[in-house]
């Protein structure tokens, strides 16, 4: 009678090391595929507040606000301010029929140099523009570009801090009309 391997020992002998490498390779490729096919959609926002209509006199402040207003007309962008109330700049459309947003931005950077604490701007579209165009105009009004000369202002502790926004508080002036 020959030697018979005990059942327990037989079972142990059957345990084999699983080769995970090809599976992991496949998962690795799958992740690359996932990464390549994913669209990293970044959704952001642009804020605006409702203009307040009131008959009461405005609150007294030490410094008169700039009252910057940008009127969007059919052929041009008109920049005006209330100190005194006057048209300070007219920026005509480019030869390709688009609004000259870089000229607007440059002019506003110049204004920001003079009025560093100012954030408010009133936007008055007088023409029925596409929403997309309005957003582009708002972009050129709101933010300082990386290529702009850095501007600094003193914070509450008297430390110079870089100004990152141009005129970031946008109010639609003709909303209630």
């Amino acid at each position: 009678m020959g030697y018979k391997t005990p059942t327990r020992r037989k079972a142990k002998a059957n345990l084999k090391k699983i080769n995970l490498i090809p599976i992991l390779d496949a998962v690795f490729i799958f992740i690359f595929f996932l990464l390549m096919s994913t669209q990293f959609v970044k959704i952001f926002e642009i804020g605006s507040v409702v203009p307040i209509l009131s008959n009461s006199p405005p609150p007294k402040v030490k410094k008169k606000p700039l009252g910057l207003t940008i009127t969007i007309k059919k052929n041009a962008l008109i920049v005006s301010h209330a100190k005194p109330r006057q048209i300070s700049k007219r920026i005509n459309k480019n030869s390709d029929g688009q609004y000259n947003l870089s000229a607007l931005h440059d002019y506003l950077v110049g204004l920001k140099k003079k009025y560093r604490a100012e954030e408010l701007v009133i936007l008055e579209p007088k023409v029925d523009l596409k929403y997309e165009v309005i957003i582009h105009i708002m972009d050129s009004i709101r933010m300082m570009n990386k290529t702009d000369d850095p501007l600094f202002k003193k914070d509450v502790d008297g430390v110079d801090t870089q100004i990152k926004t141009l005129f970031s508080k946008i109010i639609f002036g003709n909303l209630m009309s």
Partner: protein
Amino acid sequence: MARTRSIRNRKKRSKKEPIEIDITSLLDILVILLIFLLRSYNSSGVTLTIPKGIELPLSSSATYNKAGVMIQVSKDKIWVDTEVVLDVENAPKHIYDEGGRRIIPLYNVLVKKKEKIKAIAKQVPQAQNFSGMTNLIVDKSLKYSYIKKIMYTCAAAGFKEYKFVVMGEEQY
């Protein structure tokens, strides 16, 4: 052969070495997954639903969204928090009032929303107070005259702040 089967070596044979799994490649995958998750992480915690038919405009803005009532506007529909409030095809005859500036169905839904938020804030101390904020998810091809009506309606319903939801330019 005889040596392995001997009783003397039985103990040695029974002590089998544990299975070793090479986890190097697994860790590689985990690192990539981590980068993937970090890259797509949004700290705002706001979930935005963009219905079919709405293409958001591109913007250089980098301000993350805040929670608020969501108003989605496409060429033919208006939703409030994914509930259709106006479908141009099946709309009633008179949808505007106040000289064509206010959209009645939108106004009614927004007023109800406002009252609901206020009622919840009264009953539940942990609930957020009414912020008056609206997230406007508007199709980029729509005209200002229509958006103005939506903004006016929001203001009339007591919502004092708009957030125009845009798509970041950085990703392109």
